């Protein structure tokens, strides 16, 4: 485990915040909903945390909450992915011919 001290975390936090801002500021309006869905998928990374926490669960209560955490996180990741892909497929010219 690498140590992430207070200030290192603060720097990561600051740089990531600017990155997120920059990345989305050039998005055309037509992609706003897919983009929201896509960023919704990205925070599905919470699944990693849920797995780690559940893995270390000791009491039954911890296991129950951990189970909920993993299930919810997996739902976030998978649902977010499928929804985003389905929306983005709409912009794919190849599929359009098939539908029309």
């Amino acid at each position, binding site marked *: 485990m690498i140590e992430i001290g207070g200030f290192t975390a603060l720097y990561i936090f600051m740089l990531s915040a600017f990155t997120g801002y920059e990345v989305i500021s050039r998005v055309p309006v037509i992609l706003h909903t897919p983009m929201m869905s896509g960023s919704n998928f990205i925070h599905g*990374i919470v699944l990693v945390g849920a797995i*780690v926490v559940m893995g270390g669960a000791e009491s039954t209560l911890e296991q129950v909450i951990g189970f909920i955490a993993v299930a919810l996180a997996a739902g976030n990741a998978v649902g977010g992915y499928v929804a985003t892909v*389905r929306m983005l497929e709409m912009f794919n010219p190849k599929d359009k011919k098939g*539908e029309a």
Partner: protein
Amino acid sequence: MDIFIQVVYFITAILFILGLKKMSSPVTATGGIVWAGIGMVAASLVAFFEPGVFEHTGNVVLIVVAIAVGSGIAYTTAKRVQMTDMPQMIAIYNGMGGGAAAAIAAVELVKMAGSSDVPGMGHHLSTTAQVLAVIGALIGAISFSGSAIAFAKLQGIMKKTIRLPMHMMINLILFALTLVAGAIIGFSDDVSIQLVLLFFVMALVFGVMFTTPIGGADMPVVISLFNALTGLAVAFEGYVLENAAMIIAGTVVGSAGTLLTQLMSKAMNRPISNILFASFGSDGGDAAEEDIEGSMKEIQGTDAAIMMAFAEKVIIVPGYGMAVAQAQHKVSELTKLLEARGVKVMFAIHPVAGRMPGHMNVLLAEAGIDYDKILDLDEVNPEFPTADVALVIGANDVVNPVARSNPDSPIYGMPILDADIAKNCIVIKRGKGSGFSGIENHLFYADNTRMLYGDGQKAVGELIAGIKEL
């Protein structure tokens, strides 16, 4: 192993950022989500090799079962849902992420509570981590229950905007109490499990109370806000677990979501505070009810069809009504018929048309309309004066000229599509009532406006039949 895990997390963070970047252009967007997906799978797999996870075989089994259950449900719902219902699905998946972040914090806090009777032996977090765990839990829980309410509203399960007397006051007190409980938990060495429970219940109730008074029309902004909040919650829990990938991904989403929320409320010309703390219909919806000149003039589908068939330029303004009626495929058919007759057809999309920015674009793209025909507010407004027909399908507030003319109106100052300036305006509408915001629309009474009553799908069907007969 440890280095390997960290390297994978590092690559995942890069894939996420590049993926998001690629998603910002229609050409590369599909590739973007795939990159992010690869990162997600890799990070989830190496998470099993984090120290401690494989120590309890039972837990590993439970994790696999939980992943199967969660992703199974999410996969089937996401595959089956109609494109029109996507916004509420985003809300629910986002809520799940918030709930997961809150649950992670709950496990950490329960561990602390359980171990405090063995001095010096138990689970230990630094004060910073403990406080951030609590903040993440608070934000995550609010996002979880709030998103559930947003889902219920958009899905039509919960139709009324419920406002208790003194709603604001109750919310403030509840929030203050939650903060106090959170602060006690965050700074104590001896965490009480009852207090943790009370804290989570209060945070969840607050999420509900916060969201219920907000009208359905404002839900996109709220969903976007919850999306940003979940990102933050994930980032905070990432600090607690010392997981840089979670901190980076969560923060990127947090700031991107915040910007998106700002863009949306800017398009509605209302400060975010106004959307969150005052519901639309209640503050001065009556102001617009006074004297409206003229009357609503009805038109038959065949007449409207002739008008459009012999036009040179037609601008179609779709709104939520089109989405509800699932009329986008009919609209696409109409477009092709008109274009075959040499009519120039373009689409005018208001930033907040539908239930989310870009919602209309997704629907039109689904129906096979090229996105270069789909224009933004700034691009399309100069086109209206030369347009022969503006066809408004199930849009209302976004074409209400009151926003330009009447300073007393609650939507005054909101940028609108100037459909009233077109030579003729045909409005397809289900009934005579006012729109989502409850504000009368002066466009419907204008001299150059004709009303075509009926469900969007049926009305556009009449237009198609009318043009085919010519």
